[in-house]
């Protein structure tokens, strides 16, 4: 994917979506499908516009958990990756745990998080962090491994310490990997927050979905799905922009890592 994601390259996707929406609308209007089974796109848009303020307030709750979880995941992943890169023993001790953290079924663990940490913001942040940690940590570790050994040798010849080598060579060369991981993490993060809310919360998009579903208002369920998709896309885009800003030397090339 090129960084120059402009209107021209997005056009086919926009066209496909519009055609699908049109077919969907026609299907709903020509057949007698009840709205509580499949609402038409126009009913969904109507629901979005009428419930705009309500959805926004729920979305804010969810995004606070998402932001908290992402920050926590990035912090821990960064610390873990730096430590693993510095000391081989730590890498041997921790890397299998990374894989385990991803293998743990989140649906089984999340209710326990609530039992341990209560029903406040903390367990949601932990769930988001748990979901996001693995792609971040693995991509960072891999990125730090992939650095050109000749550049390190050059730095060593110039009497650079290990921290200096990390700052000047290893970390910058790992950044593209990090941003690839962050993109994956960002798209998972909203889902993580919603899983947390399903299990126990006072507000949030997960709660909005449950309330809509349980009072048989299917068009509101679809409205919240659209909001979740939009938020995930915005997060994805934000990561791309952050990558563009942080890595000026890569602006001429692809932003993603080829592997």
């Amino acid at each position: 994917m090129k960084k120059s994601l402009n209107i021209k390259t997005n056009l086919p996707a926009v066209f496909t979506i519009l055609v699908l929406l049109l077919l969907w609308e026609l299907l709903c209007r020509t057949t007698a499908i009840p709205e509580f089974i499949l609402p038409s796109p126009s009913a969904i848009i109507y629901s979005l516009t009428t419930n705009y303020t309500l959805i926004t307030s729920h979305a804010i709750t969810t995004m606070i958990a998402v932001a908290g979880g992402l920050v926590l995941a990035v912090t821990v992943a960064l610390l873990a990756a730096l430590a693993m890169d510095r000391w081989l023993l730590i890498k041997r001790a921790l890397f299998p745990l990374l894989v385990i953290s991803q293998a743990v079924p989140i649906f089984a663990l999340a209710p326990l998080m609530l039992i341990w940490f209560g029903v406040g913001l903390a367990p949601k942040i932990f769930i988001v962090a748990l979901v996001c940690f693995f792609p971040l940590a693995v991509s960072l570790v891999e990125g730090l491994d992939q650095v050109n050994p000749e550049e390190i040798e050059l730095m060593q010849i110039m009497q650079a310490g290990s921290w200096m080598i990390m700052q000047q060579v290893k970390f910058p060369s790992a950044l593209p990997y990090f941003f690839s991981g962050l993109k994956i993490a960002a798209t998972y993060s909203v889902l993580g927050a919603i899983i947390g809310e399903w299990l126990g919360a006072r507000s949030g998009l997960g709660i909005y979905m449950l309330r809509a579903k349980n009072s048989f208002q299917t068009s509101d369920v679809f409205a919240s799905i659209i909001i979740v998709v939009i938020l995930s896309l915005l997060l994805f885009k934000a990561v791309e922009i952050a990558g563009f800003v942080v890595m000026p030397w890569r602006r001429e090339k692809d932003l993603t890592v080829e592997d």
Partner: protein
Amino acid sequence: MSKLSKICIALFSLLLIMMLISCSAPAPQDLEQITLLLDWTPNTNYSGIFSALEEGYYEAEGIELEVIEAPGSVLQMVATGQAHFGISYQEEVIFARLSDLPVVSIAAVIQHNTSGFASLKERGIESPADFEGKRYGGWGSPVEEATIKALMDNYGSDYNQVDIVTTGEVDSLIVIERDADFAWIYYGWTGVEAELKGIDLNFIELRLEEEALDYYTPVIVTGEDLINGNPELVDRFMNATEKGYRLAIDDPATAARHLLTNAPELNNDLVSASQAWLADKYQAEAEIWGLQDKDTWEAYSKWLLENNLIETMPDINKAFTNRFVR
């Protein structure tokens, strides 16, 4: 300063801000912060609680009540003290007691079981005998199978002729139209919704078919620790809650409004109709709202035991108390 150090500092300051935000929830000094967990989305079963909240009954008792939706883990969290009170149902309390969770039912929200088996009128399911050759859509729990079997046994019908499919969280009204012939619903919510949609239902009420199945659902629960350590708080909570349900009984329209204030996502028409339907069922013929009968607890526990759904009888006297209703 290098980019790496900058990023590290930025991350840590963000983390710090996050921690501050999550810790700085304003708590009025004079009110006690109490948490209540709901076992489902806000609905008319909980109207008394939302009414008490909106009318300031809890505040008058010195309680600031936080209501959280936590379907699936209410009893675990009440048992571990993560929450003070919760909404559950008799069956769940019995299973929890048998697993040594120190939870106690302190009020029956609705005096009788309003659930039963619903089907579209045109499928002709008028009694459990008609379940033969039909398909049931449910959550796939053993209690459902035992319940269907018990009802059919009363008519000498063959339970093995029923096809059971798991439909999970799918809306029951869709299930009975598309995936199956009958489903287990709460009439006060799903049945009322069907009425509003103009869907004609046959409804087989559980309690009319089998007396033991007239169990309490929902109930308000709390932990043994709270009852023993701070019974006065339980008293104050229940005073306010009782007043709230009194309002829901006497003035369903206002109670519906209070519920909608707290859950504006809900369907207004459904809430109003459901509230009107439930108003005289919260207390029914009981002396006071919330009262639980030992026979009801015993009969359903015995039924569970007879159907091999539990291995031993729970200690009924520890499972519920009428100490906090008056």
